[in-house]
């Protein structure tokens, strides 16, 4: 038992769709401020788990405790096309739309100059940054990320991953990142969970110093172990001697 307070506590969680069980009696704790990556094949239940934590799916069995202040960013940015970028950022916040607050959040993700444009004029990476700003402006204790880098090109992805790492260190919120990219999980997370058939099948604590080096031998070893758990057999190319 850890003496840290938990941000997320899940006990005996199960979820079925039309008699088809997707989550089996799942237990999970996420301490405050921890960055957890959730890996797994498509259909293993990782997105279902994230939707439940987001409060978007309430037909569940078991007990889930989450912070009231939580927000999310998804694979597609899901900005409202009829609201200017800055209005999207502060949408749903209590009180009047505060442009200054939006500008500050947009500045933090590096696109303060795009505050007054329509979302349609943004590139994929910019839109994803707005989506992150919208999530972070709510000062969440838990940030849920559902493959937020999945639709980005490789160069943009690297930059946005770096941004997420910085934002996490600055805000100190707990993050649950759903992904199927093993390297992304190892680059960002404190702990990597591998889900299989609705259960947490494996767990790995990543004790590597940040920023992490993709080519470090420890990194490569962890990657091999995760790939093995995921059932991907691959010989290690380019292992440093």
């Amino acid at each position, binding site marked *: 038992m850890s003496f840290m307070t938990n941000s997320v506590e899940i006990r005996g969680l199960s979820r079925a769709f039309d008699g088809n069980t997707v989550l089996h009696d799942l237990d999970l704790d996420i301490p405050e401020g921890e960055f957890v990556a959730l890996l797994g094949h498509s259909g293993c239940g990782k997105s279902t788990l994230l939707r439940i934590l*987001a*409060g*978007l799916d309430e037909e569940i069995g078991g007990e889930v405790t989450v912070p009231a202040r939580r*927000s*999310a960013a*998804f694979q*597609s940015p*899901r900005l*409202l*096309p*009829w*609201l200017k970028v800055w209005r999207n950022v502060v*949408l*749903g*916040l*209590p009180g009047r739309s505060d442009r200054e607050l939006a500008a500050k959040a947009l500045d933090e993700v590096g696109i303060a100059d795009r505050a007054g444009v*329509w*979302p*349609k004029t943004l590139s994929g990476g910019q839109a994803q940054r707005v989506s992150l700003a*919208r999530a972070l402006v*709510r000062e969440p204790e838990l940030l849920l990320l559902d493959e937020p880098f999945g639709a980005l090109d490789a160069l943009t992805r690297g930059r946005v991953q770096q941004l997420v790492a910085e934002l996490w260190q600055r805000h100190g919120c707990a993050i649950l990142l759903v992904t199927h990219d093993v390297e992304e999980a190892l680059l960002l997370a404190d702990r990597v969970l591998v889900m299989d058939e609705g259960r947490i099948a494996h767990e790995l604590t990543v004790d590597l110093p940040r920023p992490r080096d993709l080519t470090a031998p420890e990194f490569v070893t962890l990657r091999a172990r995760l790939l093995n758990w995921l059932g991907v057999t691959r010989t290690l190319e380019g292992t440093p001697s």
Partner: protein
Amino acid sequence: MTTKPLDPAVPPQQAAPPDDAERPGRVTLRGTVRTGRRLTIPRSVRRSVGPVGLILLWLLTSATGVLPETVLASPVDVVRQAVELTRSGELPDAIAASGRRAAIGFAIGASVALGLSLLAGLFRLGEDVIDSSMGMFRAIPWVGLIPLFIVWFGIEETPKIALVALGVTYPLYFNIYGGIRSTDAQLVEAARMMGLGKLGLITYVILPSALPGALVGLRYALSTAWLALVFAEQINADAGLGYLMSNAQQYFRTDVIVLCLVVYALLGLACDLAVRILSRRLLTWRANFEGGA
């Protein structure tokens, strides 16, 4: 390729590349950028060639007597009538009377359509009760209701306004309802995640996403309003464009009839233009195909 063809049935000329136009599996992409001094006619000119040509043809056949006045008055007479009736005040009065009917009928129909489509679009119960009934009523041709409306409302203004209202209701209802129901579930989810309540979802997500559909419905509704008015004003009108037209019919005045038809058309066009301008203003956020070539 330097290998010899394996199949002797392949004709020898296939091995050697033929002229580039005929090479199989290859296409030549020709750009559309024009160089040189090719004469280009502006699009607006090209578009007006057809209508202007037809009017010239009309003018010519009338002037030469090929098109007798009893069939169709010459455009010159139509214009002369327009000037005369405007000066006497008959035409402006008629337009005002017809416009009033169209406006009142439209306002009633639009309110009913808006109310019903919101109820049906936002609530499951509303959908079950309203949408099937609307589907049933739509199957009735609304022009066919004129006799019933005369029985119910008499022959004064009421049946005319009611007919316009009815004609307006359907296109608006179905387009707004469809627009509400085609709201992107992912956006609703994201907005809920950002803390929007039911009312916030309706104002910030559902209604804006129904707006493009509603504007298409508005265009249909306005053209239907004028159409309904043409039908409605055949009922014992004592004022309005329909009255002017049925009077003209009694005296075989094709020039006045044509004039009234032109006025109906112009009013319809003006409404359409207004909605298009409104759409452009309201939908600047859309990333749309603007039409190519």
